[in-house]
Each structure stands twice: as structure tokens, then as C-alpha cells.
């Protein structure tokens, strides 16, 4: 039991440390900062008190608090990856639009510099 608490609390501290470091270096956008800070906090609490959810688990008919945490963790990760897919789709659409803009600007630029060169030749 003590060994388990040792393992989970060390892991929790490491996760929280990584999140804080990324925030400190401004590598993580603020909109994600709150989410991950909360996750870090929950992980920390559960890390030091892995039996905290045993009563809740019993109420829901789950054999142990640890299983409940595992279940919720999987659901949470699933939601996060769906969210990331959504973000990537949106970003791809944005970069696509930017690429089109660049191509249109290049075309316009080539056309205008061609006209300019012609006018110079006439003069």
C-alpha cells in the first residue's frame, strides 16, 4: 500500500512538473494551461491519496477506486484526442486558406511586374 502511494505520488509530481515547466517556457497556449493545471492537481491529490475514490467507486458499483480512476482516465484521454483531431482539422483548413492566399498574391505580383516591364519597354 505504501509502495503504491510512493509510485503514484512520484508520477503525479513529475506530471505537474512537466506541465509547469511548459507553461513557464510559454510552450503551452493559455487555453490549454487551465485544463492541464487542473489535471495535474487531480493527479497530485489522487497520487498521494490513491484510495480517495474508493467510496465513490463503491457507490457506482465499481470494484475499487483505482479502476474508477483508470476508467475516467481513458474517457478523458479519448475526449482530448478527439479535441486535438478537431483542432488539427481546423488548422489544416486555415493553412490551406493561407496557401491559397499566397498563391493568389504571387500570381497577381507576376502579372503586375510583367505589365510594368512591358510599359518600360514601350517607354
Amino acid at each position, binding site marked *: 500500500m505504501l509502495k503504491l502511494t510512493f509510485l503514484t505520488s512520484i508520477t503525479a509530481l513529475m506530471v505537474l512538473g512537466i506541465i509547469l515547466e511548459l507553461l513557464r517556457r510559454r510552450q503551452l497556449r493559455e487555453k490549454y494551461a487551465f485544463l492541464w493545471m487542473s489535471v495535474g492537481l487531480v493527479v497530485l491529490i489522487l497520487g498521494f491519496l490513491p484510495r480517495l475514490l474508493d467510496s465513490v467507486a463503491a457507490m457506482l458499483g465499481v470494484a475499487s477506486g483505482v479502476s474508477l480512476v483508470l476508467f475516467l482516465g481513458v474517457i478523458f484521454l479519448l475526449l482530448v484526442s478527439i479535441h486535438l483531431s478537431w483542432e488539427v482539422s481546423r488548422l489544416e483548413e486555415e493553412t*490551406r486558406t493561407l*496557401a491559397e492566399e*499566397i*498563391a*493568389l498574391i*504571387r*500570381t497577381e505580383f507576376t502579372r503586375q511586374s510583367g505589365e510594368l516591364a512591358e510599359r518600360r519597354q514601350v517607354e
Partner: protein
Amino acid sequence: MINNKQVLIIMPAWNEAGCIGDTVREIRSELPGADVLVVDDGSADDTAHVAQAAGAAVARLPYNLGVGGAMRLGYRYARSAGYDVAIQIDADGQHDPRYVPKLVDALSEASLVIGARFAGEGSYCVRGLRRWSMAVLAFAISKMAKAKLTDTTSGFRACDRALIDLFAGWYPMEYLGDTVETLIRVARLHYRIQQIPVAMRNRAAGMPSQSLSKSVLYTGRAFFILLLAVVRR
């Protein structure tokens, strides 16, 4: 001008330096009244220069987006320059530009005209699973469009101003999205779609892939697109 309409030929090209020059020159001699825009889809070779030297306007994308991505750029160009008709033609020269006036004529009765490969002219053929799934797609889309369409994956098509506007804002990038999905959306928005039989010429390089795994993949994607397009808003 072709039949009193400002016509833009949009030609998506990816690493086609070998044949794009001839294709552009042929179109310009066959159709002196039309403008040609080559969309260089992030080519690593000399496609853009060759096309420009042959007399086409060139829009060069900074990286490869695929046919659908190149086409949306073409339609945006057509919209901002105010063209009446936009026609998609392959860069490899398999589409005969002499059919273009026929396509433009047919636009008086429909918003989208497809140059169809199986509709009697020429000897284009595919076999097996791919043929079967193409037939099912053609059947389903014909029902939606209330018109007989036999070739839903043709990259030879013409559209009018209303659809240039639509396609400039929305054009799928995924494989088959640029052909099948656009047809479904256009049909569901109640625009008229028509087809004109065209003969294909042999491709300058390469043949459409015929391996079984590719055919299975093709079929799966085709039906996934059909399903998505039907449930999408």
C-alpha cells in the same frame, strides 16, 4: 470569349513539367478565346515555368494540397477575376480541348457539365471491383441529380458562375471528395447537372492503378464519401 462567355480553363498540375507545355499550347491554339490558369500544386520540378512560357497564367501553391485544394484556388481566382465559366482540364493531356465548346454550350441548360468517359465515345474502360463501385456511385448520384450520369469521377467538367461562387468557398481536398462529393452537394442544392460524352486520349504517362488492394481502398472510400455526403448538412 467562347459563345459570348468569359471562359477560364483551370488546370491543376503536380510535377507535370514533361507534358504541361504541350497541353497548354494545344489549348491555346484550339481555344484562342479562353484563358488558361495552371495551378502548380507544390511541384518540385519546373511545372510553373514551363506553363508560364507556354502562355498560361500560373498560380503556385507553396506546398502540395491535392487536386481539390488546387481546384478551390482556381475557383477563387475565377471568382475574383469575374469569369462566367470555369472548366477543369487535366494537365496530362488526356482531355481533348475540342470538347470544350460543347461543354460551354451545355451550360445553358445546366450549372455543371461533366465530360463523361463511358457515355459512348472512345474506348476508356476499367474492370472488376472498381468498375462495379463506379457504377453504384453513378447510379446513386444520378438519382440525386435526377439526370443520367455515368461517370462521376471525371476530372473534365465545366461550371457556371453560381457554382464558381460555391466552389470558391467550399471544395473538398480528400481523395474522391473533389469529384464525387462535389457532385452530391451540387445535386442536393438543386443545381442541374448534365453530361456530355467525350473520348479520352491515352495518358501521356502511367495508367490508372488496377491492383486489388487499391480497388478495395477505392471502393471503401467511395462509399464512405457517399455516406458522409448524404448525412452532412
